[in-house]
């Protein structure tokens, strides 16, 4: 049960949030021009690594805003939180 600092609401308990998978997977602007493989890569392929991972989170029981989180999946340490559309902070 970790604590997430929502960029809009501040520090809140994990139970207020829902996880939304890997971050920075942009929906192709022209899907019809992609090959089956390219489309499948966007559709299905997600990383699931032990270590530092870029993730999407939603403050589902709060402001309902989506944002990005950099989390170490091995110890749940959160390295950074930043808004949608922003570039991940350089370490």
């Amino acid at each position, binding site marked *: *049960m*970790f*604590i997430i600092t929502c960029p809009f609401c501040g520090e809140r*308990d994990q139970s207020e949030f829902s996880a*939304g998978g890997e971050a920075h997977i*942009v*929906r192709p602007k*022209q*899907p*019809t021009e*992609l090959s*089956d493989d390219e*489309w*499948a890569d966007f*559709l299905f392929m997600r990383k699931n690594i032990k270590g530092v991972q870029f993730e*999407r989170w*939603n403050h*589902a029981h709060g402001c*309902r*805003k*989506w944002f990005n989180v950099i989390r170490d999946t091995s*110890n*749940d340490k959160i390295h950074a939180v930043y808004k*949608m*559309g922003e570039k991940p902070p350089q370490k």
Partner: protein
Amino acid sequence: MSENFRSLETKFLDKTNRISFKYNGKKYYGYKGDTLASALLSNGVHLIGRSFKYHRPRGIMTCGSEEPNAIVQIGGNSSFTEPNVRATEQEIYEGLEASSQNCWPSVEFDVGGINNFISPIIPAGFYYKTFMWPKKLWYSLYEPAIRMSAGLGKSPTQTDPELYDHNHLHCDVLVVGGGISGVIAASISSDNGNNTVLIDDKSSLGGTTIFQDDENFKINDEKSSVWLNNKIKELENKKNLIIKHRTSLAAYHNYNYLLARENLADHKSLNERSNKLRQRLWKIRAKKVILATGAIERPLIFNNNDRPGIMLANSVKKYIDYFGVRCGNKNIIFTNNDSAYETAISLNKKGINVTIVDIRNSSSSMLVKNAKNAGIKIYWNHTIVDTKGYRRIKSIQIMEISEDGTNVIGDKINLVCDNLSVSGGWTPMVHLFTQSGGKLKFRDSDQVFLPNTAMSDQISIGSCNGDFELDDIIKNTISDCKNFLSSSTTDFDLVKVNCPKQKESKNIWLLPNDKPLGKTKPFLDFQNDSTAKDVKLAMREGFRSIEHVKRYTTTGMGTDQGKLANMHALGIISETAGVKMGSLGTTTFRPPYTPLTFGTIVGRNVGAFFDITRKTPMHDWHENNKAKFENVGQWKRAWYYPKDNESMHQAVQRESKAARDSAGILDASTLGKIDIKGTDASEFLNRVYTNAWSKLGIGKCRYGLMLNEDGMVYDDGVTTRLDDNHYLMTTTTGGAANVLSKLEDYLQTEWPELDVWLTSVTDQYATASVCGPNSKNILKKLFPDVEFNDENFPHMSYKNAEMDGINCRIMRISFTGEHSYEINIESKYGKSLWEKCMEAGKKYNITPYGTETMHLLRAEKGFIIVGQDTDGTMTPIDLQMDWIVSKKKYDFIGKRSLYRSDTMREDRKQLVGLLTDNPKEVLEEGAQIVQDEKKQPIEMLGHVTSSYFSPNLNKSIALAVVRNGKKLKGQKLYVPMKDKTINVTVSDFIFFDSKNERLNA
């Protein structure tokens, strides 16, 4: 029991408050402050229960939460009953009823005791090896028989009458454990201005120091117990300190999130606790955590080390010095270290006969000198090779240990006793530390695992950090707390400690014996009856991982989770395998630290509060009209309205007929409603639905199908254009929340450039759906100002109208295939709207119908229900709904996936209709469909998704998904059931009014 073992004075109990309680039906007395264990011991009762596997008599071993044997059933057959309660923790109260577990007919004479004599043929893994064959006996014989003998206590069968609570707690510093280091830490922390919480699982603070009677342990020239008592009194006056007694920490999660169980009533009589909370689960967020959970004494592993009367040395000391109870009249101490000599000296001082057996050659510590000076007989370099006494220890046999420690030599000496106090050193309680993600290190000098690197902001202090000497404990606690809390000075800076130091130590995990191991019973896990030879057998059979050995032998898997002797199991494994203990590691310590009752875990979420129930504004009306309800998500929806003694089938047939013959009314308030506003609302709908939305006129409605990005149908519903930039979307009842969050996701993350705002209005509007040939007449009556002719108000259009000055949104849309209207009104007027509809429809026999009739009517018409006829693997093409997929739109969610090789396959499962050869025969939903019954293995083509008897067509109809179904129209297929096979023919899936004449009528 005639003899009273409470001959000693004690200041810790309230001797004026005598309490009676029952144990195994017999009445006993104790005093306020006694635990069940101390009260029983004071009456000379040692035999408490029978062990799990061999049904060996077992007694009280310890005085705390680590107790493996003395677990009892509390509360008899009442609704308050609770199994597996540790007698060492349960405080007695007037009227307490306790009984032994796992024995029949009684704890004194137990039939299961036969297992003890056949133990050679039931070693570790006995069940795995024996009940493998013949396979068919498993269900009829093995499983029922094993279940009969499984478990220790009896689960309650009645509803728990007591209340439980959950509460949140936030603090700067949480101190866990109220022994001497916890008390010092709490004091330093609160003096330093931190909001501090101190929790302790006992009824009063002070740990083991508070009953330290030895004058040689001195703090600031006072007896250590006196000094500590004063410090505890000072704590009561600290402003920013909360002390929670009888509160044990259950779990330590990361980010310093901890769960603690506060016991509020278990020590009170039933009269005192009526309608009060029994337990409270604290959900604690602490900025910093100080663990002062102490250490527990280790037993020693020798032959027959489990008899009633064999106890841990420090526990015997607590029973004497704290509870004033003698555990016997003739005591033997068996030890490998100096700390047990404290017990010997205490016993000797109180005039109890005591002898010491020590596996060491000598010790030069002050404690040993004092024991010698007191004239206590010590057998150096000796070990116990056997014990006698069935229901209570009677004697022991000792032999000298050989030089290398692996064997015994010389003659057996027989020593008579009625109590054996054992000490094998100390194990720091690092459970909570490792639960929080901390890593351990191994200290070779005294063979203990200690906290090494912590994951969160915390420290371990005192004996759980490996300090076992009073002066080390105090010195390190003070300096560690100062560092941790960044405080420069404390009240304790000048504390002076004098104490006897421990000297020579010697550790043998499995003590040598004159008999071969196979002929002895050296117990490791007292509750689960696993012995050292079980562990060795597991190793011989090839188990190497400590986690595997644990599960194979069940060592450490009882309700005590092997707190006592897990270390010995590790030691024996490491010795046998020739691996260093430090690299072997430990088994995983998982929460909860001690068992939690289910009541505490669920708190107030019981009964009506178990789950949220959502009710529509018309709910009372449905209830008053005897509706049966169906759960749809969290909603209670009217299912059908039986009249007189109608069955469900009869009611649904009547309702369905009425809706098509004249008029029906459905409460559709539960449908998800999303209000969509913004200049890009039309473009947004274009992107989320498969069909085109740009040209939908204001005041018009359109059915939309929503896909997942993988091309599979996700939701459907009718969306109405209320204004230029304003739409009202409806979703399925169950999908409402998910659809909203999915749309929000796309808006916020993929299309932030769109000016669109989504608001859920599901709860804000109530909806009555009036359908049937007479629906128009009813609406005319309700809204006399509205023109209901087809030119002004055609199918799939919307009007705003007023009813008694209240605005209503009327949509002419239909899910039944009938001429139909959905009237939306602010929720608070929902019931009134419904009643007005009923009144206006009286003349036309308006019939309320529920979800079952709705499903039947729409199935007649071939309308799908997402989630019933689809299952996340159906594309619109599979559903034969090609017409709704726009070919012109450049993109929408899921479009690209409709052109993947797999989704384009022609032999996918497709939606079809099924007609049974016998029109009266109704298929079962979920039934499998096959083409060739003879073929083995039988090939499954698909399954029935919806099936009803249609009163309007007077025959059975069904929807099904069938492989390559589109091409099978007119073909015969088979639905094999348990007792027969039903013949069916594939048909069109629109059974009724395929030309939509009724819709537009």
